[in-house]
């Protein structure tokens, strides 16, 4: 039984010329519970759009995205928001931490719109990523590596079934990138969450046993290239 099952998924955008351009065209894709998969793809290949579709941030033109038995593509925006809050953790390349909130508040907000905030669990998550002494610090007071760790804690705080990671090490140096990647994979395992990571970095991709090429998966790229 798949945690995530995608079929005939298409998404297009209108160009400045007024034409519709197909960005994502994925015939079949699936992810098992607890599976960790890396998608290889270059910048501009539609990887982020693909993740946004899975997360329900964007609505698909057609196709289905079944997540834990529910079709994200068929839901209204409000229901997609709720499903995302309850079942998905999202780690961004630029961390996307809220600058006006402390580390603890950032993590608590990661839980707020799903199951509800739990200060003790948020604290435990920050302790897990090695930031027990930084609960009341603000993102600007942290190093980039520490900021990404807060983002990891936030993404996993709501015990999501699926973690989406979009170039999560893109803004980190080698050492921090390695540590962050190990942390993401380890905390996902500990929480029983599946991980879908997209990257163009060979070092990151090399750490995964299971890697797929997004250029092969996304037929829109093949059509554009032919």
């Amino acid at each position, binding site marked *: 039984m798949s945690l995530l099952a995608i079929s005939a998924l298409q998404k297009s955008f209108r160009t400045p010329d007024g034409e519709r351009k197909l960005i994502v065209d994925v015939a079949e894709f699936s992810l098992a519970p607890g599976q960790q998969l890396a998608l290889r793809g270059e910048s501009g290949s539609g990887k982020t759009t693909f993740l*946004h579709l899975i*997360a329900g941030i964007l609505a698909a033109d057609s196709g289905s995205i079944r997540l834990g038995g529910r079709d994200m593509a068929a839901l209204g925006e409000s229901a997609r*928001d709720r499903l995302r809050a309850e079942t998905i953790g*999202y780690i*961004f390349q*630029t961390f996307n931490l809220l*600058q*006006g909130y402390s580390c603890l508040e950032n993590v608590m907000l990661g839980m707020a*719109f799903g199951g509800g905030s739990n200060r003790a669990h948020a604290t435990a998550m920050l302790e897990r990523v090695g930031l027990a002494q930084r609960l009341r610090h603000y993102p600007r007071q942290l190093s980039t590596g520490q900021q990404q760790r807060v983002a990891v804690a936030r993404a996993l705080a709501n015990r999501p079934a699926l973690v989406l990671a979009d170039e999560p090490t893109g803004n980190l140096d080698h050492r921090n990138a390695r540590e962050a990647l190990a942390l993401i994979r380890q905390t996902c395992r500990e929480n029983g969450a599946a991980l879908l990571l997209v990257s163009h970095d060979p070092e990151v991709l090399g750490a995964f046993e299971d890697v797929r090429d997004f250029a092969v998966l996304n037929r829109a790229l093949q059509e554009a290239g032919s």
Partner: protein
Amino acid sequence: MTLALIILRSLRQHLLSTVITALSIALAGGLLMSVWVVKVQSQATFTQVNTGFDAVLGARGSKLQLVLNAIFHLEASPGNLAAADFEFIRRHPAVKLAIPIAVGDNLRGFRIVGTVPELFTAVEYAPGKKFALSSGSLFNPVAKEAVLGSFAAQRLGLHTGDTFHPFHGLIYDERNQHAETYLVTGVLAPSNTPADKVVWVPLHGLQTMAGHDPRAASDVSAVLIQLRSPAAGFMLDMMYNKQGNRLTFAFPIGAIMAELFNKIGWFDQVLTLIAYLVALVSAGGVLVAIYNSMAARRRDIAILRALGAHRRTIFGAIVLEAATIGLLGMLAGFAAYAGILTAVAAIIRAQTGVLLNAWTYNPVMLWAPLGMIGLCALGGLLPAWKAYRTDIAENLAPVS
């Protein structure tokens, strides 16, 4: 809880604009409440102040001028009336009590009013309240003695046992000093009536002050009257005002003062309109402050949406943030109100002796804050709509 956190953090992130906007709301709200309360309280107070009398009899002229002069000790006297006129009204069967007063002198700007001791012993200036002395005793009606109203004594720095020289005329001019020396025999306890700002002397003393026309030595400026019944007032009104042509009978005092407020009602309306406009501009300030910060907020909004916040949650947070600025502003507005009203009440007290009851509850203290908060929430609708329409994907750059 989450919504409160989002609102508080946003207010803190935009602290300067929050404080400035809240202060402008405080000023607007304070002004609105002050204008309203001063209007209502002054009207209520001045139409009720009659210092225990039903009517005033004086020389032919304006009833309002007569009341302002004899009751509030403002304005010039419209003229004198003869001793025979005073005796006639004093003995009239419809009149319960008639107290003569004479004006024409001052003590460094405070009016000197000549009267009889019965004003202090026989009259209740408000139901159940008679004038009382905080120190000393009443003046001897045939001596050069004086009793000072509490406010006048405080401002003049005079105490029982002190002496002074009166000055001629109602306006203080140091060249017009009378030679007579008066002894302060007592100071009245505060009554919060115009009597507090008066220097009271015996009627005879003022009438015969050196330099005053000896031919008018037995004249009085006005007669303060208590009637046996309201019907008697209408009868005397007919007798003096309709059938006679020498004197004016001002009755009822409250209605005459109400007329004054009707005449200056346009001024209240202008002030109220200004206060409303200031309130509207302040609410507009909330709109501008939040709207201008929307560009900086888009990324935060997109992040919150990515974390699962609904559009309506974001919309509500912005509207509530605007309302919270209004709430904070109105909390400070009560301080502004207290400051403005204290100053206005002090000015009115200095000018009239009447103390406005500024702290009495007035419905404006409820509807003005609620209205202001509502206006601010309305001002938050446009930026909230903009926040509502924020595209998540566009604002979660970069895209790979």
